C-alpha cells in the first residue's frame, strides 16, 4: 500500500506491507506522524476505513485533515483522555486532599495484573524495577514525552504563575499513568484487529518512553501479527524504540528532522530522513559470494515535509 511519499515508496518498493506489522521507530520530531498520516490519507482516499489508537492523545486532527485524511473514515481512540478531562473539575474547587490521605489504590503490575509474562516461569520478582531504574537516567537518546516533574533552573527567567503551579500539581495526580494507557491501547488494538474491516490501524506509542513499550510481552506482537495477517490489516506502530522485534514485517528508523531555513519570518517545514532497519521480504543473506557485486538497493530516503501555509517552491 503506497504511503503517498514517492521517495519512501521507492525504497519500500511500493509502500507499506498489507496484513503485517510495520514499525516506525524514531525520536519525537522525526517525521513518523507525517508518514503515518500520509499513509492513512492514501487509504481513506480509496474509500477504506482506518483507525488511530492514540496512547498519548496526541493526534492533531487539523494536521490529519491538511495531509488529506478523510476524518469521516478515521476511527480515533483516545486512551487516557477521559482521565485528563476529569482532572480540571477537581482543581476548580481550590482545595484538594493529597493522595496520601486516600485509600491507596491496588497496585497492578504489568499487563496481566501481576507478573510480567504469560507464564509463571517468566515472573521474576523485581526485574522490571531493576530494568526501569537502569533505563531511566537518560540512557536512551529519545526522551520520554510524559509530563515529568520539572526542576526549575535558577539561571533562567521563570514566568510561571505560582497559583497556576499549584493547580498543575493537582492535575498530575489524576492524569492517567502510561501503563494504564498502554494497556488500554493494546486491548483496543486487539478488539479492532478481531473486528476486521479496517485497512490500517496505527498504534501511536510515539510519546511513550521505551521503558514502557519494551515491557509489552512479545507474545502480544506475535498475536497482532497473526490477527493482522488474517484480517489483511496494515498495523503501523509508532514507537521511540523498536519493540515488536521479529513480529514486524518492516521496521523503519527515522532520524531527527532538520528545519528549513529558507524563510526568515515563516516556518516552512522540516527535512526528514528514513532508513529501512529491517525488511522480512528482502532475500535472505547467503554465504555464496558472487563474482560480481550485485546491485545494492538504497535503504534510506529523505523527503521534505512542508507546512500547510508555506507556498510551493
Amino acid at each position: 500500500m503506497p504511503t503517498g511519499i514517492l521517495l519512501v515508496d521507492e525504497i519500500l518498493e511500493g509502500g507499506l506491507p498489507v496484513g503485517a506489522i510495520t514499525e516506525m521507530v524514531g525520536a519525537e520530531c522525526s517525521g513518523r506522524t507525517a508518514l503515518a498520516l500520509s499513509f492513512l490519507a492514501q487509504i481513506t482516499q480509496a474509500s477504506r476505513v482506518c483507525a488511530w489508537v492514540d496512547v498519548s492523545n496526541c493526534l492533531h486532527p487539523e494536521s490529519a485533515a491538511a495531509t488529506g485524511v478523510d476524518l469521516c473514515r478515521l476511527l480515533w481512540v483516545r486512551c487516557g483522555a477521559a482521565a485528563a478531562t476529569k482532572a480540571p473539575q477537581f482543581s476548580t474547587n481550590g482545595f484538594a486532599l493529597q493522595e496520601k490521605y486516600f485509600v491507596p489504590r491496588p497496585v497492578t503490575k504489568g499487563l496481566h495484573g501481576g507478573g510480567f509474562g504469560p507464564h509463571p516461569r517468566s515472573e521474576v520478582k523485581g526485574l522490571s524495577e531493576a530494568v526501569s531504574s537502569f533505563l531511566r537516567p537518560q540512557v536512551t537518546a529519545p526522551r520520554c514525552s510524559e509530563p515529568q516533574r520539572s526542576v526549575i533552573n535558577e539561571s533562567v527567567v521563570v514566568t510561571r504563575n505560582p497559583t497556576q503551579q499549584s493547580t498543575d500539581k493537582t492535575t498530575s495526580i489524576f492524569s492517567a499513568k502510561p501503563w494504564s494507557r498502554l494497556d488500554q491501547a493494546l486491548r483496543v488494538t486487539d478488539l479492532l484487529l478481531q473486528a476486521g474491516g479496517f485497512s490500517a490501524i496505527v498504534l501511536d506509542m510515539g510519546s511513550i518512553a521505551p521503558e514502557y513499550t519494551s515491557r509489552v510481552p512479545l507474545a502480544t506482537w506475535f498475536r497482532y501479527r497473526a490477527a493482522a495477517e488474517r484480517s489483511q490489516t496494515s498495523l503501523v506502530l509508532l514507537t521511540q524504540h523498536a519493540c515488536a522485534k521479529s513480529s514486524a514485517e518492516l521496521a523503519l528508523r527515522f532520524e531527527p528532522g532538520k528545519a528549513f531555513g529558507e524563510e526568515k519570518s515563516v516556518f516552512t517545514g522540516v527535512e526528514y530522513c528514513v532508513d529501512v532497519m529491517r525488511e522480512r521480504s528482502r532475500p535472505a543473506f547467503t554465504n555464496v559470494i558472487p563474482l560480481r557485486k550485485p546491485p545494492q538497493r538504497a535503504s534510506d530516503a529523505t523527503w521534505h515535509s512542508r507546512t500547510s501555509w508555506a507556498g510551493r517552491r
Partner: protein
Amino acid sequence: MTTPVELYACLYAKEFPCQAMLRLRPDVRSEPCVVMAGEPPFEYACSFNAKARVLGITRGMTRVEIDTFSSVTVVFRSQIEEEAAKAAILECAGAFSPRVENACNDNSFCCVIDIAGTEKLFGPPAALAKSLLERVRDLGIAASIAVSSNFQTAICLVRGLSSRPGVTIIALGEERAALTSLSLTVLDLSEEHAETFSLWGIHTLGMLAELPEKALIARMGQEGKRLLQLARGEMRHLFQPVEPSFALEERMELDTPVELLDSLLFVIGVMLDQLIVRATVRILALASVSVSLFLEGGESHTRTVRPALPTNDRQLWIKLIHLDLEAHPPQAPILSLALTAEPGAISKVQLGLFSPQLPEPMRLDVTLARIRAIVGEDCVGRAVLNDTHKPDEFRMEAFSVATGSISELARRPHCAAMRALRPAERITVKLRQKRPDALFFREKLYTVQQAYGPWVMSGDWWNQTLWSLHQWDLVAHSQDGSSLCCCLTYQTASDCWQIVALYD
C-alpha cells in the same frame, strides 16, 4: 339494496392473567402455575394453567390452600403485564383488519375482528384464522378462534368451545344449529336468570332457542328477548372498533428486586424476543431500544441503545444492552423494567465484488461499545473540526462506516504533521528582545536557533470564552544534540508559556 356480507373472527384466550404472566416467563410454562390476586392476606387464585388444573386447583382457592400443593409456582397478578400482553395481541389482530373490537372480560381475552372482504388479501377465513393463530402463538399465547357472520354467535361459540383450541368456522345460516349444544354459561347470565332457567330445566342454548318468544318476553322482559336472539344466533350488534396502535413496548414486574446484571439480561432477552417477533411480522427491524429500569426508592434509570443499522439480531441487542448497562449501572435494586423500541426499515446491504473491505456494521457496533467500556464514552469516534480559528478545536462524533462518496480534500502528502500535547505543557522561557532565546522543556535546556512569530491570534471576544494568544514556531537544540521543532504559545490572559504541539 343488498345488505353487505358480514364476517367476524373472534379471538379468545382463556385464563388470560396466567397466560400474560407466563408469556415473559418461558421457564415456568412447563410447571403448574397459579396467579394470585387480592390484597394479602386475602389472596385468592384467579387464574392458573392446565397443569395446575390437573393438580386440582380451582378458582378462588386461598394462599393456604395453594400452599398445600407441592411444586406449584405462585405469581402475583400484574395489570401492567396484562395490559402489555393485550396491546400486543390487539396489535397482532390489527395486522389482519383495521376493524377490531375489544370484548375482554376480567379473566379472559376476547376480541372480534371484522374480516369481511379480506379474502383476496389473506385467503379464505380458515387460512386467515390459522395464520392469526400462529402469530398469536408466537407471542406466547394459546388461543382459539371462531368465525361466523354474526358477531355474538362468534363470541358465544368461541367461549363454549374454548376447551378445544383451534379454528371453528360457522357457515352463513347455520348459527343456530352450531349454538345448540352450548351451555348457558356462555351468555354471562345474571344469577337471577340463571336460577330461573335452571328451575325451568333449560341448560343449553338449543333449549333456550326453542322457547316461545312472546311467552318468554312476558316473563323476563326485554332481557328475555335478547337472550333468545343470542341463543338463536340472530342478535344484531353495532360494531365499535378500537384503533390498536403499533407501539413496541414490553413491561415486566420482577418477582423479587434484582441487583445482578446477568439475571436482568435473561429477562431482557425474553422481552426482546417478543419485540423482535412483533417487528418481524410487520417486516420491520428494531432501530433503537430504550431500557427503563424502575428502582427501589422510586427512581428510574433509562438507557437507550441505537446501533448503526436497524437489526433483529437478538444476540447483538443483548450484547449492546449488556455493555451499555455495564458502563452505566443502576444505583439501586430493580423492581420492574420496560423495554421500548423504535421500528426501522430492515437494512439491505448491496455487496460488491470490487468494493473495498469495510467493517461489518453490526460487529463494529459491538466493538465500539467494548472500546467505549475500556477508554471512556467520549474518547471513541471520529473527529470533526469546529469552524473556528482557535487552535486544536474539534469535537468527537459517533463513528459509523461512511458509505457516501469521498469528500474532496486538498491532498498534500508532504504536509508537515503535528503531535498535540494535551494538556499543553507549561515551560519556562528565557526572552531576549521580547523573543524566545532559550527554553526549559522536560528537564532539558534548549537553545532557540530559529523563532518564527509571534502570530497574534484571538477570538470569542464577544463571549466569556474569549481567548488570545501569541503563537511561535521554534527550532531549538539542546546541549546533547537533540533538536526540537515545536509550536509555542504565550497566553496573554494567564501570562504563561506553553508548548502545544511538536512537529513530527
